[in-house]
């Protein structure tokens, strides 16, 4: 019995450096996608709330498209379909970031839109009354508040995206899932190896969510309910 466990342990230990390298790829992919989703999602949210009618239609169509399709399908569609067609030659990691990022932008834009619309209209009105342009009011008054409110929703998006990133293994992206699958199919230690991969995802989620909670506490506006439940 102990021998068997030791054997399994040694398989895990042997595979661990290889899989841990995949952890870096996973983190890189998730960070890249989240960043792209943020950079695209924020302007999308702003335009959806304050922009002209045509921009609102455009954004709603975009959101509808990316939220309406499975990540797996989007990966195939873009990597093997569109990127191939237009001759875009990307590394698997870059392609993963791009596809996940575009999808995440759709989700993130709706997180930010919700926060923007939850602010009292008087905030922007007061900014305009002081002579700020609408763009300045949005930049200096609306977004700093809306982004704070978005952290819990964003933390959710992070944990979902982290797990979606496992899909990128179908492109051959050398992340946790792909590497675990590779080792497992050779050693047949499925249970032990996938459990190890699960623990890694679990740890990344824990660290990421804790960091975001720290951030939330750090930028908390005094006088508002705190994350600890104390007032």
């Amino acid at each position, binding site marked *: 019995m102990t021998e068997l466990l030791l054997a399994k342990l040694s398989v895990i230990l042997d595979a661990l450096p290889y899989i841990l390298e995949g952890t870096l790829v996973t983190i890189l992919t998730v960070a890249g996608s989240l960043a792209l989703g943020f950079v695209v999602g924020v302007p999308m949210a702003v335009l959806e709330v304050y922009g002209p009618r045509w921009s609102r239609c455009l954004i709603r169509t975009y959101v509808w498209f990316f939220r309406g399709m499975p990540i797996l399908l989007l990966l195939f569609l873009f990597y093997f379909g569109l990127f191939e067609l237009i001759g875009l030659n990307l590394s698997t990691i870059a392609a993963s970031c791009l596809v996940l990022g575009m999808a995440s932008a759709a989700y993130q834009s709706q997180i930010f839109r919700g926060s923007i619309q939850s602010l*009292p209209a*008087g*905030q922007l*009105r*007061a*900014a*305009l*009354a*002081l*002579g*700020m*342009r609408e763009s*300045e009011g949005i930049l*200096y*008054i609306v977004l*700093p*508040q809306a982004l*704070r409110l978005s952290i819990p929703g964003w933390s959710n998006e992070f944990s979902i995206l982290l797990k979606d990133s496992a899909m990128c293994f179908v492109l051959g992206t050398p992340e946790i899932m792909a590497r675990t699958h590779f080792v497992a199919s050779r050693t047949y230690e499925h249970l032990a190896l996938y459990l190890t991969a699960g623990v890694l995802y679990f740890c990344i989620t824990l660290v990421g969510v804790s960091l975001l909670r720290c951030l939330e506490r750090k930028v908390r*506006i*005094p*006088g*508002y309910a705190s994350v600890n439940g104390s007032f």
Partner: protein
Amino acid sequence: MTVSLSPVLSARHISVNLGGKQILDDVSIDVSPGELKVLIGPSGAGKSTFLQCLNFLIPPDTGIISLESHEIDAKNPRALSLYRRQVGMIFQDFNLFDHLTAVDNVAIALRKVAGLSRDEARRRAMAELDRVGLSQKSGLYPAELSGGQKQRVAIARALAMDPKVMLLDEPTSALDPELVGEVLAVIRDLAAGGMTMIMATHQMDFAQALATEILFMEQGRIIEQGSPAELLAPGSGTRTGDFCRRLLDAAPAAAKD
């Protein structure tokens, strides 16, 4: 003294239709330097709408607004921004920027609109807070201030832009009775200092004592206007007089609960 005769702010024939309802119907006003015009009238008369029209927060459908005889072209963003800097606005519900401390609430427009450096803006903001008696509270966030203190920060914030005229929309009506006095005292100081103001209020004692003119609004029109003495004289039989007596009758009842 020709300067004092020409109005600081003039609005002619302002009409607004919102959702198919005529909210303002041909309203005009002229304010000369140092004047305090008081808008009164029943709830829903259009006082807030009118004040917001005056700085284009609600764009009027028709009408002309001029500052010191220059007609404002609200289509031009630069002109509009410049105009709004010169027209301070005080809201019923304060609208302080919730994520900024008192001093940053005052400083932000100084930096981003007036183009002052961080230090200059801070210094000026502290001076304005001092003027409304709040230099001790400069580091507090809006949620940590009382209603009266919030409104005084809002006044400091508007004053920091050196406005030529101030629009005040029921600045004390969201306040607990014991906090009304501190805000009215600040406004009284402004009036004494020669600030030009248009103020919607239900504080009739205040209006009677300080208004250069009272305008009575109802259903989107100004139906009476004149000095407090004319409109509020006992037996004058004006709608304004009626309205005020009803307010005063209601006041003791409201104070009881």
